[in-house]
């Protein structure tokens, strides 16, 4: 659904992250949301109320549709967090778990 312009891809270093347990290639300077979209992820969570699929919508920290689990911390706004090497990202199903474990 989304792809990176070749011009933009060449200028930035490759950064390896892990999404749902699988290695994914991102670029330095990406937010988590940009990295997920560029890597072809169509959704980042299902909604807590109706279980509907959701994806990043506003990209500016307002809508909270891009919530994911980052390094074990649930319901983080993917559009506000910059990726880091080895970062572990998990897409969410429904509401986050509150017992300390990732949802």
């Amino acid at each position, binding site marked *: *659904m*989304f*792809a*990176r*312009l070749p*011009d*933009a*891809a060449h*200028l*930035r270093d490759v950064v390896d992250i892990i999404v749902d347990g699988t290695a994914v290639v991102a*670029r330095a*300077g*990406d*937010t988590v949301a*940009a*990295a997920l*979209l*560029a890597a072809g992820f*169509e*959704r980042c969570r299902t*909604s807590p*109320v*109706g279980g*509907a*699929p*959701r*994806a*990043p*919508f*506003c*990209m*500016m*920290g*307002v*809508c*909270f*549709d891009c*919530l994911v689990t*980052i*390094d*074990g*911390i649930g*319901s*983080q706004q993917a*559009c*506000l*967090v*910059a990726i*880091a090497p080895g970062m572990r990202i998990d897409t969410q199903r429904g509401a986050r778990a509150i017992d300390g474990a990732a949802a």
Partner: protein
Amino acid sequence: MNNIDVAIVGAGPAGLAAATRCREFGLDVTLFDEQPAPGGQIYRGVTRSPLQDPSVLGQDYWDGAPLVRAFAASGAGYVNDATVWSVVAANGGVTLGVAAGVPAARTAHMIDARAVILCTGAIERPFPIPGWTLPGVMTAGGAQILLKTAGVVPQGRTVLAGCGPLLWMLAWQYLRAGVAIEAILDTTPRWRMAQALGHAPDFARSPYFAKGRELVRTVRRNVRLVEYVSALAIEGEVAARSVRYRVDEREHTLAADCVLLHQGVVPDVNLAQAAGCSLAWNDLQACFAPATDAWGGTDVAGIYVAGDGGGIAGALAAAPRGRLAALAVANVLGRISHATRDPIARHDRADVATSLRGRAFLDTLYRPTDTFRLPSGATIVCRCEEVDAQTIIALARQGCAGPNQMKAYVRCGMGPCQGRFCGLTVNALIAREQRRDPADVGYYRLRFPVKPVTLTEIAAVPTTAEAVKSVVRP
């Protein structure tokens, strides 16, 4: 950092200019911003965009770089990746609750300042149509941020829908970047131009006019434009697959993998409103904005608002509005006299006036129609709590007193976005059903934290002996 003269929230043009001006008068100022780099949304990532061909984003974008450079050289404090979740004015000062850092090591701090300038900017106006929550649907502003910060663009069949300058700008940038656009579905009704024409002479003298005209011409020449769209629905099971639209009572369907929506922007009022600042209804712009004096001062002592967060006036007006607020603060804090303040202010006001030229034309031409502000049936109004239009309408008909009682009944506006994407829709639906003025219906009463903060983060805030005494049993 915990005890400063001035705190500024938001690193867009208003915040950058306000901080820089504060430093000119020797004030100890720190700017807190939610993004990784300064620029706000309009100049998002301007110091680190991966697009090295400057012609893709256009000169107006790169014009933001000098603001960032001046700010960086000013000696102002700067905290990025920082969310301000509360602002409380008391005892002649202001206390900010701030959470900063990466998710795994995020900590909260309480910052005491003598004054705060809120430069929270604009957010996309809600666009409640069927299917607007589906993956593959994004705001045009969000898509533009992806382009600016990561060079990421839609693939496949891309449709832009709605109205407003940003929609044209994004289409133009996509053309420059070589992104294929299936169609633009323009929701501006036929009769709007007649309404706006009275303001056209003023717009012809606007700094936006010549560029805007050229941009619209280029897009019209290269993209299929469907005008006078009077209904929109996005279809798909788990993601957008097509857009259904109506023109002159005829229905059409267009296959689409990516639908980018936009019908203008509105002020992000959450922080100001929760801090106790009164809001005022702007009927032409169909939104609420904090009520301010000519300096951006609100009705809460010590709290100022500048830039689009104080009412939509655009990027060029935001910087001088930030400078005006900084002047007022410098005066109130005793750094400059009225005699120093006022001549400088005249220049800033002239800059604001120049950039506001023609604004009435744009506001009138692109005021979204009721069709796209007042959803019906099962269309979702509150994206977080998944409350649909028919539920809101039924309760409004039964006499629900306003947005706050609506919250108590169905939880609309009580999810993590705290009403940012449903507040204006709920207001509009209640106003229509009860034949009341939107100003009278009012907005959600917002409370802190305006964005989620964890108990772990709050627990890390240093406590005073009094605070411990007030909750610990002897």
